């Protein structure tokens, strides 16, 4: 399937530590505690971010969220039904 190829390609890129696809409740890939943590925390953060964006202008919407930290970069593509999370270490 189309998305599987793309997903696999993403996982093989340089520096990518993990990819998580989360639906509104549970997880679809990588079942371990870190994944659970990421999914839950990022879910809340995207809700807050989306609320912020839309409070300023209700016709606007959040499309992408990037968190750059010392060690990694966390990229979140939010949607109503799912969350696509990729963690990358770009400075390798």
């Amino acid at each position, binding site marked *: 399937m189309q998305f599987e190829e793309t997903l696999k390609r993403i996982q093989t890129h340089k*520096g990518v530590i993990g990819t998580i696809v989360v639906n509104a409740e549970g997880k679809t890939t990588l079942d371990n505690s870190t994944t659970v943590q990421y999914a839950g925390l990022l879910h809340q953060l995207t809700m807050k971010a989306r609320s912020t964006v839309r409070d300023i202008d209700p016709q606007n919407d959040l499309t992408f969220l990037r968190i750059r930290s010392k060690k990694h970069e966390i990229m979140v593509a939010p949607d109503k039904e799912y969350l696509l999370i990729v963690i990358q270490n770009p400075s390798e």
Partner: protein
Amino acid sequence: MSTTRAKPKKPTLKVTPSSRVMNVSTSGVLRVNHSSTYARSINASVSRKSFSLAADSKILDKSSVQTPKHTVQVFDENGKDVTPQPLYQPDPAAVMSKHSKIFASDTSGGTMSDFYSTAYQTTTNASFAGPFTRSVFGSSTVSRGSQSTMESMNEEIEDPSSKRDISISLSDVQVRREEVKELIKEEMLDDVVDRYLIESETLWLLHMPAVSVSVDSEEAESVKERNNLYMELCKNRMGNDKYVERSMQTFNGAPKTKDVQSEAITMVDAATTATTWDMYDSFRSAGLGEAALSPDTDKASVPEIVSNHRLDPTRAPERTMSVISTTSIASASSSRIEMEPFVVPSEDEPDPELVLQSEKFQQDLFVMERIILENIYQPKLAAYRQLPTLEDPDSVPKVVPTVVSRREESSLDEESTLTPALERLWSFSCELTSGHNVSSMAWNKRNPDLLAVGYGQFDFKDQKSGLICCWSLKNPTWPERVFTCESGVTTLDFSASNASQLAVGMHDGSIATYNVESREKTPVIDSSDCAHKHTSPVWQVRWIDHERGASGEDKGETLISVSADGRISKWFLRKGLDCIDKEKKSEALISRQAPGLCFDFHPTDSNIYLAGTEEGHIHKCSCSYNEQFLETYIAHKGPLYRITWSPFCSDVFLSCSSDWTIQLWRQDLFTPVLGFTSTQSAVYDVMWSPKWATVFGAVNEGRVEIWDLGASILDPTIVSLASPGVKLTSLLFATETDCILVGDSDGQVCVYQLKNLTVGEGTQVAALEDIIGSTLASQL
């Protein structure tokens, strides 16, 4: 004793200020209770009323004589007649004995023993309601109270007429009141009516007797005395015979415990945040719900539409319905609409599989991939765009140990770093393309970040299926579009007028155009059905924009191709009936037998073009002159692989061939002005730099060469070797940056940046002309 005149027996009634009773309804009889002993208490008067109740009732029953009313006259201390005027004049004829009987019967039940209880009851009731009530009970008690004067039982009763009148008075009052109203209506409204405001009497609403008395007041002495008496009494109580302790047992009602159990009151905390976007969403969904319905019906009013659709779709439009009902339904249904947006969140969760396959997810993946790659390739891409590269602040510590050594080296290399060099940025390649030979590359005319690469073998042997990949600069690891063709792709070109149209020429002689915007894998049109299609490999296709159409054909862009069967053909695209492009080809422009390998149209004059053949000849031809060449340039000894006009000097063109040489020509001279040889391998591709007139690049089998004629006409300025085992096959300059793309036989397209190429200011056109001029001069 006549029953009529009860009044004369009594002492003169005096209206004293200390005891006033408001009589709301009288029958002309005003009895003021002289309550001297019970000062300040209307209660007492009321109690007296009750006392006399029974007495009155008994006496009432006996009386049945009607007596005329007698008037009461009240005089105050000064002898003034302050008789209150009657509020109404009861009709003596209208006597209703029944009423009085009823009242009497009501009270006949009261016996002496009940006096106390009734007294207390009436006490409480009348004290509050007495002065004001017009009610039956109130007025009756008051009136009766007024009638009772003495505690003695032998008091003569009121004349029954008055009693009856009182009972009648109730109904009469109401009648009179209505009459009064009617009178007013009949009067002229313009009359000036005088109103006098008089201070009314004080109305006692509640009287709570004080428990304590001020020391200074008059009664203080008597109160003190009484208190002292009481205290002495209390002291003397013990042992006094006057007081006997006695107990009494009362019946205690058996207490009964009653439990009531109710359901536990569940408390639910409900909270909501009204954010701006939340409200916006709700309004939008509600508005959309109504907007969607309106096109379905042709009614004017929205509520009707709403009602018809929401309540019963099959109901016929009921315009006869009253407006009120429709609006009420509308309000109900609109509230239902309001409800609906809030139902949406409770839908069941979509299947995860469906989620993954949705468009949005793919889009997100696409974006995500690009962002990841941007992270990886950011320095390279920045160099490509000639932007300063951002140093990752967190990665500096890692570099520290090596920096020291680098610094030492850099001082030595300072001079060497200034030499022109090619810096490899990245390469477009993926596993799909590995093993394929890059045959041609072309930039998109509208989006300079989009690159189309054609893969196909040059040789006739080991032909694989061809491949076209559209690469985007943002993703060097995977092409945006992949098209597979039956035979190897030898050439391609993007159209300028229709930026998404890509023309492809193939090894089997067919030409196809693809639409790169769509995701379809098939070409838009194909020349395989055409009768005049090429029979040999098409070596070059190009979109040419004709300024003036030749022989009545439309202006615009046409596709020109050259093929090994010796024809240069012009292809037309016309729309068919069912909107499928059909191809029509005009007659060939060249009919020589020599197989053509390349061509190039003059940059300014689109009528003139050069064609290179396999024999090594260069022919200058004109579109309007099909039969003959205009000129022929002969210098090369082998098949020409590329001819290209200089974009700056319109007389100059370059040609390269497999005889290891590159020749620089001027179109009026039949011998090349300059020839360049550097290695002993066939030069596959040559291209002028779009930025400098004196710079061009060439690709031969093993290396990439950048020639700067201003620097040296004998040696290439930059030479970059290819990886061993890989042949470099094509070259493309990037239009806006100092980068070149080199395609090789392994399917890789490497992007190099030209560094430190100091050519000088401007496009160096003059320099080129100088070089040519000086060369010519030296040749002579």
